[in-house]
């Protein structure tokens, strides 16, 4: 199996704070992995590091075959990250946000429209500034943007939080079809029922390093 994420003794600093203190993690192509652990264990930083957004202070980090220390830019356009706040402009409407990020990421506009429809971002919701949407609705907008991106590696940070039951089911089906289409998915979550339901391999983090389940042999 080809390795999609390969981290060895990775240390990462956020504004002088050692967010990651030596992470070892291996994820193969097509795998579904859940990062679990207490708040502040480093789950979000692992995801952002794998997206090429956090510099590697020491250790080896390869994502999608690229060395993050040398070529983080090449990784960024191939991953999709769903952050806790969605990464949307509050001042723009949902559809304007979708269109802007689609154009900025060279995504086909028809793909975005299809995704928007799938997540119910049409009509009035589509024309509402994102700042005035509810948390769940914002999350749906961010998900639509992510799905349209057709990323090779999906990095989802607490994706179930703030979604209603229907939204969570929709999310799970999206994740399943992404994996079926050959994508690799890493989810940071507190919702163990959901991640187990998806059949994720669980990796436990504490104090900025992996304490359990880091390599697939385990």
């Amino acid at each position, binding site marked *: 199996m080809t390795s999609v994420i390969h981290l060895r*003794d990775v*240390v990462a*600093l956020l*504004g*002088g*704070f*050692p967010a990651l*203190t*030596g992470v070892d993690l291996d994820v193969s192509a097509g795998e579904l992995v859940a990062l679990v652990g207490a708040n502040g*264990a480093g789950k979000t930083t692992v995801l952002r590091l794998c997206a090429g957004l956090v*510099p590697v*202070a*020491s*250790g080896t980090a390869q994502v999608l075959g690229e060395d993050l220390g040398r070529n983080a830019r090449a990784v960024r356009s191939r991953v999709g990250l769903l952050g806790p706040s969605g990464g949307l402009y509050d001042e723009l409407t949902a559809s304007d946000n979708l269109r802007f990020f689609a154009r900025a990421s060279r995504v086909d506009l028809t793909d975005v429209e299809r995704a928007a429809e799938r997540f119910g971002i049409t009509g009035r919701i589509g024309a509402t500034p994102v700042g005035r949407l509810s948390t769940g609705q914002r999350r749906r907008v961010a998900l639509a943007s992510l799905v349209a991106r057709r990323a090779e590696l999906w990095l989802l940070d607490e994706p179930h939080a703030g979604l209603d039951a229907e939204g969570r089911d929709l999310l799970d089906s999206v994740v399943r079809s992404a994996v079926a289409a050959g994508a690799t998915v890493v989810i940071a979550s507190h919702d163990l029922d959901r991640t187990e339901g998806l059949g994720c391999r669980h990796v436990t983090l*504490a*104090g*900025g*390093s992996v*304490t359990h389940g880091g390599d697939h042999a385990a």
Partner: protein
Amino acid sequence: MSIGNEQTAGTAPTVPGQSAPTGHRSTSSPLTRVLGIIVVLCIPLVVWLSFVATPPDRVQGESVRLLYVHVPSVTVAYVACFVTFVSSIMWLWKRSEWWDLVGSSAAEIGSVFTALTLVSGMIWGQITWGTAWEWDPRLTSTLFLFLLLVGYQALRAASPDRSARSRRSAVVGLLLVPNIIIVNRSVEWWRSLHQDATLFRTDLDFRIEGLMLFTWMFTTAVGMVLLVWLMFHRFRVGWLANRVEEQQLSEAVAARRAEATS
């Protein structure tokens, strides 16, 4: 940058240019001691030359002695500014800690010399022109150089992590020289439309004679040695501060990791 655990706590890091870790943490080395001794020995000579040996000027009288401070300090200030400019370009090319520290050391010491230039220039102006400030292109450019250097240092002080600090200050350092050239040209053009009496040009065109010229050149040379001497020390302070930062980080990494496994 290595933040790894290979660095053990307690050993004093070696400063570049020093052969071995000094037991007492100091930024000096044989070279800086020699430079320091040269400066200390030359300063009484500078004082003697500029106050006793040289005659008062025919036109300016005793106030000409201020120029023995003013002209060398402006020269040193602009040299330091140019060093920051070159170091910023080199940092953008090489991305090395070395150029970052050279650039920031020069900027810091340069701003002190710039302030000295402004103060001595204003005292001289008060005596000679009767006003502390004239919108002379050189004096105005020096004021802007000072403001730009203050901004450079404020930006460095405000940037929390080292990579952002080096990156952003290199951009500002690179823009120092174009900014100063634009300010100087525009002020010169502006003033030339209104008046043509600027420093060193018309009515104050005094003759520079042998000993005066020598005093100037000598003081400038001493100022340069002083700049190099201070830069060595400032560089090493910055370098050690980076090592302390790294050591604290690796300790924090170890502490956080120990917390997780316990």
